[in-house]
């Protein structure tokens, strides 16, 4: 039935002395009966598709509602102007996140990770990062198993659906998955230390987005979804940085996930993908909805 706690996940890696990605690969093959080769082939296809979605981006595309489109292009121009405040990889990550979110809204082919609305977070960190550090596709594919492992545990203990748990469950989960993935890719520690740091990164990213509500304007996966991919991706990087620096989450990750579940259950339905509360309920949000229904 897959992984059910991060504690168990990490213990398995330590006791068998195999990296986290291998724990996930083996447990999934046991569960589903597919071979390791088939599994890796599938995962490789997901990675190729993520890269292709990024390439399919066209800054002139607009979504059917015309609410989103073009922001990835604006970010690109800004980067080229050399005026970015942070510089380095961060503006690239922001650009990728916007591009992916916009590709999704414009009906391009994407990889749900874990959902379509949050599809931009993982590729937003992985694509620029691969370029910057010259990481092989094989290594990235391995790291995707790490993210799937954490995602599986979050899905089991809490939720990865905005309708159930709010946006913390979508962008929050994506961010947690991405930060663990980054730590896995960057750490040169022992297998056991990497596992602990990945868990800390996952915990910190989730904590930072705890309580995030799902409030899509007019019920469409556009506003605020596209830009939330940006915070998911940048939060993944800051949490990964902290974990790599040796900073630990005071609350153990499984308990953080359980807290996310509790918070999600307490959210009123107006803040769980119904397009009623939060930003969707603002005057402008309502106006947009009204206009949409009367086109």
């Amino acid at each position: 039935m897959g992984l059910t706690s991060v504690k168990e996940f990490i213990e398995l890696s330590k006791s068998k002395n195999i990296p986290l990605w291998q724990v996930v690969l083996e447990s999934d093959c046991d569960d589903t009966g597919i071979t390791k080769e088939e599994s890796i082939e599938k995962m490789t296809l997901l990675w190729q598709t993520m890269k292709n979605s990024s390439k399919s981006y066209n800054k002139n595309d607009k979504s059917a509602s015309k609410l989103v489109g073009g922001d990835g292009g604006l970010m690109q121009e800004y980067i080229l102007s050399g005026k970015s405040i942070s510089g380095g990889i961060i503006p690239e990550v922001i650009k990728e996140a916007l591009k992916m979110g916009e590709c999704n809204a414009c009906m391009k082919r994407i990889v749900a990770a874990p959902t379509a609305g949050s599809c931009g977070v993982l590729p937003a960190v992985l694509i620029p990062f691969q370029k910057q550090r010259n990481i092989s596709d094989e290594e990235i594919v391995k790291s995707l198993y790490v993210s799937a492992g954490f995602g599986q545990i979050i899905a089991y203990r809490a939720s990865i659906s905005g309708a159930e748990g709010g946006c913390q469950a979508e962008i929050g989960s994506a961010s947690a998955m991405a930060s663990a993935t980054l730590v896995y890719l960057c750490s040169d520690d022992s297998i056991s230390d990497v596992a602990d740091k990945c868990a800390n990164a996952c915990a910190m990213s989730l904590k930072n987005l705890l309580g995030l509500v799902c409030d899509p304007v007019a019920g469409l996966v556009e506003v605020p979804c596209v830009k939330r991919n940006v915070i998911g991706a940048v939060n993944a990087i800051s949490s990964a940085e902290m974990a790599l620096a040796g900073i630990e989450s005071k609350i153990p990750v499984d308990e953080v996930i359980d807290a996310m579940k509790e918070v999600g259950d307490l959210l009123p339905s107006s803040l769980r993908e119904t397009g009623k509360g939060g930003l969707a309920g603002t005057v402008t949000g309502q106006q947009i909805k009204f206009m949409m229904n009367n086109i």
Partner: protein
Amino acid sequence: MNIFDILGPIMVGPSSSHTAGAVRIGLVARKLLGEKPVFMEMCLHGSFADTGEGHGTDKALVAGMLLMNTDDERIPHSFDIAKQENLQIIKCVVNLKDAHPNTVLLKVCGENGTKLELVASSLGGGRIKVYELDGMKVEFTGNYPTLIIRNLDKPGPVAHVTARLLENKVNIANMQLYRDSKGGYAAMVIESDDKISKDIIDDLQKMESLVKISYLE
């Protein structure tokens, strides 16, 4: 959930429930129809009606009827393709009592005159369920090979069908029985682990008291 439910599916956006799920509903309808469609009426309910246009739900349903999968990049252009293939489309809004928010009532007609009506919902993450087929309450997901048999409500058909499947070593994963009223019409929905061959289906076609047989691979 297995890891490829966490990463994946590969799909055309923007929404796994309103787009990917809708493609799958269209695809199930198309496969159940079993022939090239010439007409489809889609009656959207709830959130499908409210946000369907922005999510491309209508395009997705049509794409499924044209045998496209959830990752087919032609989905946004499905209306144009439908025109080329002479598939006539009507779109409307309905209010179905007690239905899931993402529900559609589809009425379709094939080139040989076969007609089919189904009510199906998209449950999130691309998962779907069919709740009504030709006016009869049913429940199946389309994840397994599914055999749907409608017959007159008399003793015998269930034993007959299960015996045929047993003879052919088809393992039944799920089986449900439904009926309209005593002595009226009944339906059997059988989800199997193995594919059911055309020979078995042809053989079942000869069954006494059979009204209609549909198969979804």
